């Protein structure tokens, strides 16, 4: 057989390259597709289910392909800003926390889908409306909450005679004092992470009755007796119960400390137990989950609502809207939730007793916590000023300052100065 000459090779290579360059363009022209941006899930089967089951099923039913574009955890806000600024990119996106409010006028009104889903699937939790309804219109379809709750070591708590998780912050403090003395301190993030610091600091502030700004979005009310009481509690909680390193922690730190058996209690998403079950089964056996403790003004949780939104400027927005309606129907949604076990807590009451909650009954407090969950900065309206206060870690740093010895009055004063600066400029 004659071996191919160099010239033949070049010809083949050029033809191949031209073909490769032409093929995707031809592919796009031949069939329509919708692109959905998502952050890589902490639960791999959740992404796999979308890619291997949901996307092919939609294509088979409608002939429209679905591209599931994954981006790393924490990078979606930057990606969404870029898509909005350049007007090109994905058609549907995952969006969370305050971002639907920041970008509301670039997101399609999807009230029809939300109302239909609410009617057919048992109605929405109030928290879903708090997270996605803007000026009376749904700008995103809430998919799930990633709750931040208490994770505690049952074996070490038992050593100090505690069998059920303490119901109030003061009771938790008493337990923590005993556990720290036994070299099993608590580990609650007080640094510049994102979820695990806000996950307990806002609920603590609220449960003592403190707020940053009134619901009118104008009056800064952080300087109150309630805030002072929350700070005083946090100071002793830090000093007598906590591991010093928490001041410099970011979000992965408490997971690392948990698996290293350094801490006996922390505030985290469900995933900490899921990860332990996979990789540290002995630790998983002695891990339990509970709702945040109560304060004098009640029990609170942080709302981290993961929603799907359609970009209003997308040339494919009608297709994207159809796809989102399909995805939000019970048949698709229910199975998708199942694949994520209960890491994603549904906002529709139809799933309150779904089989996914039986996979790991220790997760059930995450479902129950949704009734008392609010967005960061609640009850102030979620807007740019609030987002700025959160991005500047005003509240987190106020607590961290108090914990490291700044007088309560001074810590509050500096937070107030910052908040007044932010709220005046907008």
């Amino acid at each position, binding site marked *: 057989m004659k071996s191919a000459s160099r010239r033949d090779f070049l010809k083949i290579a050029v033809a191949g390259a031209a073909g490769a360059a032409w093929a995707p363009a031809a592919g796009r022209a031949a069939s329509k597709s919708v692109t959905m941006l998502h952050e890589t899930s902490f639960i791999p089967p959740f992404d796999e289910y979308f890619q291997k089951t949901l996307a092919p099923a939609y294509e088979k039913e409608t002939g429209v392909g679905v591209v599931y574009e994954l981006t790393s955890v924490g990078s979606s806000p930057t990606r969404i800003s870029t898509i909005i600024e350049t007007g090109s990119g994905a058609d549907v996106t995952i969006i969370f926390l305050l971002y639907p409010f920041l970008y509301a*006028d670039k997101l399609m009104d999807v009230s029809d889908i939300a109302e239909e889903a609410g009617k057919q699937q048992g109605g929405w939790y109030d928290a879903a409306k708090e997270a996605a309804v803007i000026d009376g219109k749904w700008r995103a379809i809430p998919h799930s909450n990633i709750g931040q709750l208490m994770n505690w070591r049952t074996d070490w708590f038992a050593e100090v005679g505690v069998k059920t998780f303490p119901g109030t912050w003061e009771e938790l403090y008493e337990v923590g004092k005993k556990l720290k003395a036994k070299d099993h301190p608590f580990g609650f993030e007080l640094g510049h992470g994102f979820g695990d610091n806000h996950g307990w600091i806002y609920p603590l502030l609220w449960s003592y009755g403190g707020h940053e700004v009134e619901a009118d979005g104008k009056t800064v009310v952080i300087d109150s007796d309630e805030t002072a009481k929350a700070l005083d509690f946090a100071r002793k909680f830090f000093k007598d119960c906590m*591991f010093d390193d928490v001041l410099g922690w*970011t979000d992965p730190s408490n997971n690392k400390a948990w698996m290293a058996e350094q801490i006996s209690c922390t505030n985290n998403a469900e995933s900490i137990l899921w990860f332990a079950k996979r990789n540290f089964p002995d630790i998983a056996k002695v891990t339990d989950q509970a709702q945040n403790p109560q304060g004098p003004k009640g029990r609170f949780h942080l709302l981290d609502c993961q929603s799907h939104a359609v970009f209003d400027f997308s040339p494919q927005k009608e297709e994207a809207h159809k796809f989102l309606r399909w995805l939000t129907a019970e048949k698709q949604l229910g199975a998708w939730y199942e694949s994520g076990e209960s890491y994603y807590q549904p906002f529709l009451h139809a799933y309150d007793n779904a089989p996914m909650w039986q996979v790991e009954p220790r997760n059930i407090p995450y479902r129950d916590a949704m009734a008392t969950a609010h967005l960061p900065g609640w009850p102030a309206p979620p807007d740019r000023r609030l987002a700025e206060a959160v991005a500047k870690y005003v509240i987190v*740093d106020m607590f961290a300052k108090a914990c490291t010895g700044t007088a309560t009055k001074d810590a509050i004063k500096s937070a107030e100065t910052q908040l007044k600066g932010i709220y005046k400029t907008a």
Partner: protein
Amino acid sequence: MSIRSEPLLRVALPPRRAFSLALWLDREAVFSWVMMTLPMLFLAALVGYPLVYGILLSLQDRVVSKPGHFVGLRNFITDFHDPIFWRVAVNTFVYTIVATLLKMVGGLGLALAMNQHFRMKNLMRALLLLPFIVPTVLSTVAWMWMLDPAFSVVNRVLIGLGMRTPGPSWLGTPILAMFSIIMINTWRGLPFYGITLLAGLQTVPPELYEAATIDGASGWQRFRFVTLPLLKPIILIVTLFSVIFTFADFQLVYVLTHGGPQNATNLFATYAFDIGMGAGQLGLGASVALMMLPALALLIVALTLYMRRA
């Protein structure tokens, strides 16, 4: 036959030749401009445009997804009233000055050591570049583990030396956190200094050292009066680069502390990112980022003037 002078005359006149692109390009004035055009276009597109756009943004109340309005210097005034902004400014200066000095002294020492003859010299020189080659995000994650109170090699050593457990909280204490990021930046930037100064050292003619030795100069005097003056231009250039990179550092802080604890390690770049991307305030974020410009511009002008005079 008579001699015809007419054709000769014609020959003497310079012929009117057609325009030649090759000759035209050969002219120095033209050639230099042609050569300059591409880099200038490149600079204008990749440096000039973002800079001008950044300045325009900083003068607007521009937020993501909405058109901005011109607000003059309002964003800068907001920055000046923001206590965290001043904290960030101080942090950035402390970080840059200390890290650059450490890198300068350490890099010079490294270069002098590497300039000696020893076995496996080339291998050592190659290994020296490792911290510089490893992507910052990766090496920072490795440092995150090294500074973790439970797994820290540093703390294990300290505990071994008799310190109480669990040892200092490197990233949880404001001063230690700043110290840690300075150390990591120095570790990462040292090879750049070391290798560049090593290249400079090798250009110093050995005769100068021989002459100095014959004149009775000690090792320190040879360094002080021969090596240092000849290395000065290179030290200045490396310092200029290093200051610019360190001043605008982002990845290290973003991965390690995200500016915490309590903004103790927040730098201009990370603070600007949080405001611009976290809060969607592009105008305000740009104004924070632009505050790096005057300090850097002053430094560049000062160093350039100094080098020209030298």
